[in-house]
């Protein structure tokens, strides 16, 4: 009988999508066959998606990795010198020494992929609950000050300082206040919220309770999109577990303060990621955008003062409260007013896709080339969309931009939720511009005219451009329409759809001129 082997394998949805459960079953079978005592724990993902399913086994107190594994690899894994099977073709060495991971600054995602998501003891052993325990003894003003001091800004896309939002809610006198967590992560190219909820859900709950303590709110709601069934299942169990342990309820941690959390599911509407639309949905209505003012911090859910924050914002809060110096340490990271770390997500046509948490200021090139290893197809990078379907398209010549709120604004782009979608040189940017308008037409809530009608007309007009009909005139029309949508829409859906359209026109004009036109234009220039 050999020594027991400690092993970890993700049960994250991305890992499951490439066969993690089949690998787990094969491991259990093979271990039993060989009389090896395998202690297999299912964790979240480390965020190195190209290595999933990534098995980690303990060798001399540290974790060695094997991936991407298929069930067929398992017998040979045991046949080699398992668990220290360095000669196995799937061995990736010590997991924490893989450059993709070693070069990160994991704060918000410190525990993700390491502990079992619903193991409260492991959570505490890895620093969990320190923030909440300290916050429970603090005056609300002091908690708000700590968050303000850290410089933490909303990670959902708008980048509004969290401390200022919380102060506004704290200052309101009301019979009830709410903390609403936006987990309607609909942007293509983003999966950080999902990964965190599946891999370390207690961090989110802890951040929400602290937000409640800081603002005087006693009810929290998490709005999770229906496309995330695994996240929903994990979060539901996490909430039940916290209720059982007295970490949620009438008297949280014996503090005398009440806070409870309800999970609410979305039903397939992208617009519900917009905060006012999400509030409408949480009240049981069509997800139609609200006119502001009033802002939700003053009149939000059920017309009560409401903190609305993204998953990543709230999940970062516990570490900021862990000790008195934590806000200063966090604020020292990053550049200018972009403080702390950002979980960037490398997606699309990328060789090493996944989650990279780094201080603000890293360049887009470092992310795509050093971390991502270029395109999956091996062809040159041509266009990168940063910040989801409402974000700008950047050409390969713009990759040296620093990833901060300010530097991205300087090149007419935005960080959004930190998603980075890479395309190679086979992309047709006129088609992508049309897609941006078509997506807006599909997902518009229909409340305001510039978005509801503008997106439909925009898609039609870009189709004409692609067919080569009056190209110059129609492009002028699209640009004019974009101005109306930007200035006249009620929310970011209509207001930002012009960003991918105009950036595609600006950086890739050659894709909007049909071959004939381009020749005529060139000929005219030559003869004049």
């Amino acid at each position, binding site marked *: 009988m050999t020594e027991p082997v400690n092993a970890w394998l993700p049960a994250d949805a991305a890992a499951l999508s490439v066969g993690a459960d089949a690998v787990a079953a094969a491991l259990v079978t093979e271990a039993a066959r060989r009389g090896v005592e395998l202690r297999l724990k299912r964790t979240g993902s480390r965020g190195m998606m*190209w290595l999933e399913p990534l098995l980690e086994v303990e060798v001399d107190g540290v974790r060695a990795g094997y991936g991407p594994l298929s069930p067929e690899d398992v017998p040979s894994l045991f046949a080699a010198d398992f668990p220290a099977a360095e000669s196995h073709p799937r061995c990736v060495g010590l997991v924490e020494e893989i450059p993709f991971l070693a070069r990160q600054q994991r704060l918000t995602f410190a525990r993700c992929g390491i502990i079992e998501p619903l193991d409260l003891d492991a959570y505490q052993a890895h620093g969990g609950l320190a923030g909440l325990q300290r916050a429970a003894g603090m005056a609300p003003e002091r908690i708000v000050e700590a968050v303000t001091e850290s410089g933490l800004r909303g990670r959902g896309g708008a980048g509004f300082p969290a401390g200022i939002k919380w102060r506004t809610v704290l200052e309101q006198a009301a019979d009830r206040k709410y903390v609403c967590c936006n987990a309607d992560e609909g942007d293509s190219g*983003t999966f950080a919220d999902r990964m965190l909820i599946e891999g370390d859900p207690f961090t989110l709950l802890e951040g929400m309770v602290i937000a409640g303590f800081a603002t005087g709110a006693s009810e929290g709601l998490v709005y999770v999109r229906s*496309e995330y069934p695994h996240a929903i299942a994990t979060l539901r169990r996490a909430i039940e577990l916290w209720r059982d342990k007295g970490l949620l309820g009438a008297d949280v941690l014996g503090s005398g303060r009440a806070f409870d959390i309800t999970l609410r599911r979305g*039903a*397939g509407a992208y617009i519900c990621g917009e905060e006012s639309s999400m509030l409408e949905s949480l009240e049981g209505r069509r997800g*139609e955008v609200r006119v502001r003012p009033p802002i939700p911090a003053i009149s939000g859910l059920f017309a009560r003062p409401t903190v609305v924050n993204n998953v990543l914002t709230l999940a970062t809060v516990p570490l900021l409260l862990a000790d008195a110096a934590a806000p200063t340490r966090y604020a020292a990271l990053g550049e200018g007013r972009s403080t702390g770390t950002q979980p960037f997500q490398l997606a699309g046509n990328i060789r090493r*896709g*996944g989650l990279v948490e780094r201080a603000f200021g890293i360049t887009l090139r470092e992310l795509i080339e050093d971390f991502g290893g270029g395109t999956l197809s091996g062809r040159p990078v041509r266009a990168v969309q940063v910040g989801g379907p409402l974000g700008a398209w950047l050409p390969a010549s713009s990759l040296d931009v620093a990833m901060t709120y300010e530097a991205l604004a300087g090149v007419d782009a935005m960080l959004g939720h930190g998603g980075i*979608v890479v395309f190679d040189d086979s992309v047709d940017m006129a088609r992508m511009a049309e897609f941006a308008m078509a997506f807006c037409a599909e997902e518009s809530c229909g409340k305001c005219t510039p978005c509801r009608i503008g997106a439909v007309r925009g898609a039609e007009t870009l189709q004409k451009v692609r067919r080569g009909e009056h190209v110059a005139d129609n492009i002028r029309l699209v640009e004019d329409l974009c101005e109306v949508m930007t200035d006249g829409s009620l929310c970011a859906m209509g207001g930002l759809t012009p960003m991918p359209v105009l950036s595609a026109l600006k950086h890739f004009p050659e894709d909007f001129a049909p071959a004939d036109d381009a020749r005529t234009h060139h000929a005219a220039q030559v003869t004049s």
Partner: protein
Amino acid sequence: MDTQPGRQRCAADADEVRGICVRHDRRADALIEILIDVQHARGCVADADVGVIAEALNLSLAEVHGVRSFYADFSTTPKGRCVVKLCRAEACQSVGSDALAEQLRARLGVEFGQTSRDGMHTLEAVYCLGNCALGPAAMVNGRLIGRADSERIDAMITEVGND
């Protein structure tokens, strides 16, 4: 009008929907949760269900109908036994989801948003399944598939068919 073909509506059907409303304390703010549960239990939210829910929640028919028609997850007629969702958003487009979409249409013999005549397959477009580093992403009856291709989707269709 009952939109469920070949199925006689009876008091038990209404009771099931009413029971779901009661489980949610007949709260109007839980309407979306209720609709999700009805869709799950009955395969669709039929017009008759809208009436039952409206009465239980003390809402107008228009309010419940308005919510049902706003959210893409709700359907008025039953979906196929196997619901195949393919992500059509940018990240998946960058790794060939458009070509895969064409293959699926041909393979299943249905357009996006439609159910095959034998009631076996429904094909749906979705915009992001949160698996953007392992695209193209697809989902078959709630089972997520990364690096999806025709063969892997076919295999999953067979697998869920045997469940």
